[in-house]
């Protein structure tokens, strides 16, 4: 009996005992899991953070420092405060490069979005050989920017380029792709579109494939024309893709360099000079790296402000998608 009781008691104790222990273990387990999850997330983030810190934030901070200094071409020589920025304000080439960059962005962004969406709709339909076309259109994005720009030179060279040879072969006059500002600007825009449309198309394709076909069926039943389906279904429903591409394209346009560097070097005159080519010229040709750093910081700020504005204006759309 006593044994029984004691055994019962013991069992009671045994039964009771695990309860708080279980609770405790469960609590500590959750904490440990959380802890492990935090550790794991840092583990995943770590390499990226280190790379970003080393190759993005450190150079960015450094560039900011250099922009407040004076440069001899082989390192900074002394603090000059805001002098480099004051010089920017009174530098007509800087302003022309800024205007050129803005015009370039205003033309290339809407065009590459529109062409990308158009091609995506086309490639999403039952076009024969569409896999081949998708690859061909995406190809310029995969090749090095300099290589595509060199192809641009082969196409648009004023005296030996393919485009002018074709024009002359057709009995027309060749266009002044290098000697006249507007034509040079157009050649840059054409090559940029050629490079970028493929990327936009792929993002839009992914967006299009997420749209339920039933919506189109319903629209057809309601008597919507193809244009109405495109305008009132496709365009709003790929909104999140458009938002993403808008930011990417604006940043890309603001940072354009290789195409222009290879094709026109900013010429003729200053007609295709943009902020990044001007910064390069100052940093590596004139060897005034502090002034170049100041231009770099300006590009960074403009891009940052634009992205912030876009982000605020489209926050709801981003989450809705």
């Amino acid at each position, binding site marked *: 009996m006593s044994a029984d009781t004691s055994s019962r008691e013991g069992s009671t104790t045994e039964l009771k005992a695990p309860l708080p222990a279980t609770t405790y273990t469960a609590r500590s387990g959750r904490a440990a899991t959380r802890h492990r999850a935090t550790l794991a997330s840092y583990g995943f983030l770590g390499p990226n953070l280190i790379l970003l810190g080393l190759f993005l934030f450190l150079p960015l901070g450094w560039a900011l420092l250099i922009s407040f200094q004076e440069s*001899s*071409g*082989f*390192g900074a020589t002394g603090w000059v405060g805001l002098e480099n920025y004051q010089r920017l304000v009174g530098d007509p*080439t800087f302003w022309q490069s800024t205007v050129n960059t803005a015009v370039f962005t205003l033309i290339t962004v809407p065009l590459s979005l529109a062409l990308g969406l158009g091609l995506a709709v086309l490639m999403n339909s039952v076009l024969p050989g569409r896999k081949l076309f998708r690859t061909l259109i995406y190809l310029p994005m995969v090749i*090095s*920017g*300099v*290589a595509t*720009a*060199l192809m641009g*030179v082969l196409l648009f*060279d*004023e*005296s*030996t380029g393919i485009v002018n040879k074709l024009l*002359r072969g057709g009995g027309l*006059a*060749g266009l*002044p*792709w*290098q*000697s*006249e500002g507007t034509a040079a600007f157009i050649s840059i825009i054409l090559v940029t579109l050629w490079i970028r449309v493929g990327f936009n198309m792929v993002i839009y394709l992914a967006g299009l494939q997420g749209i339920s076909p039933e919506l189109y069926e319903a629209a057809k039943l309601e008597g919507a024309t193809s244009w109405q389906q495109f305008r009132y279904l496709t365009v709003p429903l790929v909104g999140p893709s458009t938002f993403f591409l808008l930011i990417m394209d604006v940043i890309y346009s603001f940072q354009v*360099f*290789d195409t222009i*560097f*290879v*094709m*026109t*070097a*900013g*010429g*003729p*005159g*200053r007609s295709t000079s943009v902020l990044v080519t001007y910064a*390069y*010229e100052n940093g*590596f*040709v*004139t*060897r005034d790296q502090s002034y170049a750093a100041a231009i770099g910081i300006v590009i960074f700020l403009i891009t940052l402000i634009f992205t912030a504005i876009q982000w605020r204006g489209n926050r709801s759309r981003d989450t809705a998608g």
Partner: protein
Amino acid sequence: MTISRRQILGGAGLLAAAAALNGCAGFSGGGNNNGGDGDNTLSFTTWGSPAEEEGFRRGIDAFKAANSGVEVELNLVPYEQIFTNIDAQLQAGTAPDLFRVDYGTIGAYSSQDQLLDLSTYFDTAAGEEFLPSMWQAIQFEGKPFGVPHQTDTSAIVYRTDLFEQAGITSVPDSLDSAWTWDEFRAVAEQLRGSLPDELYPFVYNWQLGGSPRWLSWLFQADGRLFNEDLTASAIESDAGMKALAFTQGFFTDNLVPPSSSVKSSTYADDAFSAGTTAMAFVGNFVLPSLDADITDFKWGATYMPRDERGASDLGGNALVATKNARNPELAAEFLKFMTQPEQMSDFCARAMELPTLKSLVDTELDYQTRPDIAGIFVEQATTIEPSDVEQLTSPAMATINPTLRDQLEAAFTQGQPVEETLAKIAAAVDEAAG
């Protein structure tokens, strides 16, 4: 003066140049800290045409044979990339022991205390072995900071078929009978009359870093860029006006391809080998590639035009050692070796370039490409005067060049008036030299 070209054959240079800009890919190799055998190893960064590369390799092999246990690491990079790389390497303390630099750029390094002062390794007698103008070209404040390895200059090459078509039957065959500006202009106009619209009478080699070659016109008109003591500008003169108006006329009168201005990305000799011009001003170093590339027409060469006097550009390159070279004695030894008569004549004959040693000037080098026209360039080089060299190699030139390029571009392609252009160039010269 910046000798551009050489290594870019086939656009490879642009590719690599921008590869360097896209990332750090270009900054590898040739550094002081890339292993090797420490004190007995020299790293040497250069660019070079295939002929120059072979010349360098032969020189290095001979140097190694003469100095057992010594290693020379040759790092060949495209011309467009080299100074961006070298600048970054100098800042990072990973610069090579030796590199090659043109006479227009050497001042940017020597004046910033980046190069090894060779005074202790080259005495006055050693300096006197070189042509005075060339020895002067590598000095800064009276001290030598490199060795003049070779020089080159420009002259005119022309297509015989297009000349015949235009009825031009004779071209100058001596320096004394070189075309005057008026005669040259008449020849160009005669060609313009006979050529179809898409072909042009000539193209001048001031593209891609070649803008200082415009100064040859200024010197021919007996003008100066700097004043006598190199402290201020002297370009706002009658000679300056004349030279700029004359060269601006090339564009307004359709005598050169409109796309061949100073900012063009196509070299003059490439336009010529593509058959788009009847004449081209080219440096002698492009002769091997012209000879290889041109198969469908015959071409000859003649002298630069002259006005008040003859003049041409001071091309060519020096070899320099960096200030922090691991083994300065060995580096200086290498520089000495590469400028021995035997090495220099072999290199120059191979690469179609001109020697800088007095002892080789009157020697007939065994030129391996078009020896028939090599003499024209050798003679043309005698029109470069010490006063030209002094201006072209001023350390201020490195800062002036970008403005010179921008202003010439504005004058040639945007119709900027002559006076305004000269005033802007003068302002840049005053600021850089003052």
